């Protein structure tokens, strides 16, 4: 196969994932211009390593390179953002039982786009990465584990923590502490 054919094959395979690549780079760098540079760099790398691609799951293969390029770029340019996460830290507040009125509050409120974007952008990067791959790219845990280069168990705990942080950012903080709930409400029906 000639270089040109190889290049065409790469283009056919990679082009459909350009938006996903940009979306991830944009959420990780939080900046359009940086995301553009990173994606361009990642695609050049991907083209170079195309020979090592075994033909399965082009999306995960490509996004793994994009993710890797993003982190290399962040290390060189914004190393302060790459704080390490202790995935075994059990003391981290996980999903607490929601207050009885919370689901109502969440369902009744229409969230502003800016509000949600801000909450995602403020997640620590290790959580943000897993959260964006799951919620915006709709990738399976297996694919996320491959792209983020962590075990599936870590994907699960990071996702759980990311969502707990998101909820805390979105749901008003002045909700009452857990209290005894009348039986009628606990059964999900309001008299």
């Amino acid at each position, binding site marked *: 196969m000639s270089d040109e054919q190889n290049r065409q094959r790469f283009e056919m395979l990679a082009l459909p994932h350009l938006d996903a690549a*940009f979306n991830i780079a944009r959420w990780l760098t939080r900046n*359009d211009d940086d995301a553009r540079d990173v994606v361009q760099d990642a695609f050049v790398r991907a083209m170079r*390593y195309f020979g*090592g691609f075994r033909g399965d799951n082009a999306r995960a293969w490509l996004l793994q390179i994009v993710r890797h390029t993003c982190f290399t770029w962040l290390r060189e340019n914004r190393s302060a953002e790459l704080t390490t996460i202790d995935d075994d830290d059990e003391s981290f507040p996980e*999903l607490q039982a929601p207050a009885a009125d919370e689901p109502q509050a969440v*369902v009744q409120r229409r969230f502003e786009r800016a509000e*949600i974007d801000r909450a995602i952008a403020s997640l620590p990067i290790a959580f943000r990465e897993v959260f964006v791959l799951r919620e915006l790219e709709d990738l399976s845990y297996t694919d996320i584990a491959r792209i983020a280069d962590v075990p599936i168990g870590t994907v699960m705990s990071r996702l759980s923590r990311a969502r707990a942080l998101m909820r805390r950012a979105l749901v008003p903080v002045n909700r009452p502490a857990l209290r005894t709930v009348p039986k009628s409400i606990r059964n999900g029906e309001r008299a």
Partner: protein
Amino acid sequence: MTADHDPREIHAFVDDELDLKTRLEMESRLEADADLRAQVDSVRRLRQAVREGASYHVAPAGLAAAIFDKPPAPATKPEPSRREPSHPGRWLSWFAWRPVMATAFAAVLVASGAQYVLLQARQEGALADEVIASHVRSTLGDHLVDIASSDHHVVKPWLSSKLDFSPPIGDEMVGGAKFVGGRLDYLGQRPVAALVYRAGGHVAEVFVWPDKGADRKVQYRDDRGFQIAHWSRNGMAHWVISDVSREAFVGFVEAVAAVEGPR
């Protein structure tokens, strides 16, 4: 109270990532445990709010051209990655091995494909049983609809507020049947929308839910006197059931499928 739940399991449940056994255990616990249900609901709502509300950054115009009009850069240093160790000779040999690999791939594909087809047929049979059971229950008892209205502007928002998707609903009359309302139901281990139609004394129900699989053409079957059709399109699975005649049923199914636009 449920202090003993692994929160990761709740998230994996919502994400449809649990293995079947754990999933079934979770479902039976859910039925008994209101707190657990509240937690699952809370995760679902957050998920929906994010998926509907968050910005998705598509690649700016010109980025594709900037990337693909560039000649490939000469290889410099290998990527420091475990998964794609790369040196110049490597991909040449990959291309040389391609015919052999292709045959091996094909054999694996055929084998797994056959198993997949069998599995799918079994799942479809089980689902058809569930659809019939649900239809019979709803027509036997007095619980055909949760929301009685022929106005899809009323039923659609009501259903989408209860579910994590929005079912496609057409006009008041579809293929000679009158739309009488919607119901929440539970099929294939997930909540689904049931859309109820009446034509004369007959009831037809359309069950809809999101389906990640590929589009599939309409397939008909009849079972215990019921006409059943199912298909997947635009990420939605549809199962239709009624006790009308085969001809009337086919006309109705085509009209329902047309609600989503021409093929």
